[in-house]
């Protein structure tokens, strides 16, 4: 094949593009690699051994992290919290967003803006009133109390995302469903929700990450160790003066695995959700 100007341009473009993509990939993957590598070292070697692959692999850190961090019960709790909260957010936000988008009722826009404005309030700012309110409702130190609070935390952004999605849904689809005999509930369930699948995937992954990694609110609302989520277990290795880095890294690696799996499962929908907002129905 003869090299002409166009082929050379193409090769240059591709080379630059691939170098850029490779750099981004390495910068994303390197911290994960470093976390796994550090999880196999000891407290003594972690600061002196700067090699990529540690000479001696200390798998014991994983066992120690699992036992010392009480990961068994915390994993169980985190799964319960993540599934319940994400389900709650998907159900409530999709109904609310559908109502804000397709129904007409007094104060609709005002209520929507209040929801959106709630995103501006930083969580720590609402700690004291939230705790006092939950205490009055006898929901402090209960799973359901924490789940309700976390659903509330995730609602604003989810409603905003879904409302934008539903706004672009052609009204012809709704009319056609109505002609076929669907009521509003059925339109929401049979038409709106299936079409919003990409947006729902974004909401699921975003909120799963949020709940899985949350621990400040859990520490505030829960007292019993048996109710605490996974992130609390990681704190056992992070003392005021001492940090057990290798065990902490082992704990972090184990904690990251489920959420990486969820992300991989959802990634096709997420890309769609991010790019297909303009074409609905």
């Amino acid at each position, binding site marked *: 094949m003869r090299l002409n100007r166009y082929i050379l341009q193409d090769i240059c473009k591709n080379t630059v593009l691939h170098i850029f993509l490779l750099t981004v990939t390495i910068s994303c993957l390197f911290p994960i690699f470093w976390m796994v590598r550090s999880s196999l070292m000891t*407290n*003594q070697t972690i*600061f*002196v051994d700067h090699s990529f692959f540690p000479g001696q692999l200390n798998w014991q850190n994983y066992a120690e992290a699992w036992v010392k961090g009480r990961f068994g019960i915390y994993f169980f709790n985190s*799964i*319960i*919290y993540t*599934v*319940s909260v994400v*389900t709650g957010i998907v159900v409530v936000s999709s109904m609310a967003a559908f109502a804000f988008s397709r129904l007409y009722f007094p104060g609709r826009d005002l209520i929507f803006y209040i929801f959106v404005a709630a995103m501006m309030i930083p969580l*720590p700012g609402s*700690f*004291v009133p*939230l*705790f*006092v309110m939950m*205490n*009055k409702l*006898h*929901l*402090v*130190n*209960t*799973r*359901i109390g924490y*789940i309700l609070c976390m659903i509330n935390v995730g609602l604003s952004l989810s409603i905003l995302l879904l409302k934008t999605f539903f706004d672009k849904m052609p009204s012809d689809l709704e009319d056609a469903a109505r002609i076929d005999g669907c009521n509003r509930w059925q339109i929401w369930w049979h038409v709106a929700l299936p079409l919003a699948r990409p947006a729902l995937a974004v909401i699921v992954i975003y909120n799963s990450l949020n709940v899985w990694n949350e*621990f*400040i609110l859990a*520490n*505030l609302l829960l*007292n*019993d*160790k048996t*109710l605490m989520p996974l992130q609390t277990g990681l*704190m*056992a*290795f*992070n*003392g*005021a*003066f*001492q*940090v*057990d880095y290798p065990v902490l890294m082992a704990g972090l690696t184990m904690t990251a695995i489920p959420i990486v799996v969820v992300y991989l499962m959802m990634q096709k929908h997420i890309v769609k959700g991010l790019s297909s907002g303009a074409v609905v129905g």
Partner: protein
Amino acid sequence: MKRFLTFLCGTVLLAASGCGQASKPANQIEVWHWMTDRHEAFATLARQYEEQTGIKIKLELFAPSDTYTQKITAAAQANVLPDLYGILDKKSIVGAFIKAGLVADLTADFEANNAAWEKAMYPKALDVMRFSAGNIDEVKPGIYGAPLDVTNIQMVYNKELLKKAGITRVPATFDDFLAAIDALKRVGVAPFVSGFGEMWIVDCFASNYAFNIMGQDKVMATFRGEVKYTDPDWVKVLTIFKTLADRGAFIDGIVTKGNKYAEQDFALGRAAFAFNGSWCVNVYRDMNPDLDYGVASLPAMDQSRPVRSWGGAGSSLVVNGNSSNKDKAIAFLKWLTAKEQQAYFAETTNNLPANRDAGTAISPVLAEFSRLVEHTTHPSIWPLNEDPLVIEAFDKGIQAIIIGDKTPVEIAEQVQSVKERQMKKAAK
């Protein structure tokens, strides 16, 4: 789909079930603490206490400490504090808790039986929870908490590196220290490391020398505005940093170094001297168990006055003033700070015990820290404290001196102008 829905319903039901708030048993003391590294020792002692008395100790750990503080603040406002807890805040906040009735007055218990409990504790440790007559927080004089351990911040030195530089005696005077710095530089060893990227360490180091050079009365007079920061003694304090910087005493990048990184440097033999707290014993042991080091006071500028390093109570617990189990909680606290329990605590956690009689169980390095406890002081026990903005200007000024941006006289003038501005504001 059906399977998924079944799983979902099961999860939600599980979340909602069996999680109502339990009522508080009368024979149980609830303790909230933040001490991750001491939790296991705490739990062992709690089990022992239950075996001895039949009273169950429900121990809850909330870490890190800033999250713990948020929890305590929220629980205080909802009036659901546990029987025993800690207040990790300024003394004025402790005062606010006391005035709100959230902390029990333990004075009578400390003074009972010829003040046996009080005498067993290091006075410096008790001072942190003691409010004296006429205190600025307007709290009824008394003792409101019990310390579990004590800490103090001193100079630590690497014995091997000192030997390598031919230094046979730990410097006791500032001139000796400068000579040691020259000797260390000659053999290519960084002389000094500390977490001077953290303001509180800079403040601690400077305040040690302020107390040494001018004494507590003059420092307090400065805080009251009666002595200016441009006074020659204050300029002398600031000049210490310039002298050390010019001499090349500081490890590279010291003004951006957090204490955790400074600890790594010392533990790995990258510097011969460090300025650190007694907690470092655990940190250095984890990073380098073979490190051979000793503890000493900062070398004095003025031999007529002792160098007063920061120290006192490390962790203290208070009893909830509204607790229905107040007497039981006090009894447990008394038991926890008794000699045997404190010795166990010190032995297993490598922290300095608050009980003076429990010192036999500690390691030689900790014993060196322990020897210096009586020479400590702390802002929380001073009769008054400096305005936070003045402290900030002072500490940032020191960092500017170290990197050669400003001279001690320039910083003294800057700090004085901030002081005057704050005094004018306060007068309005």
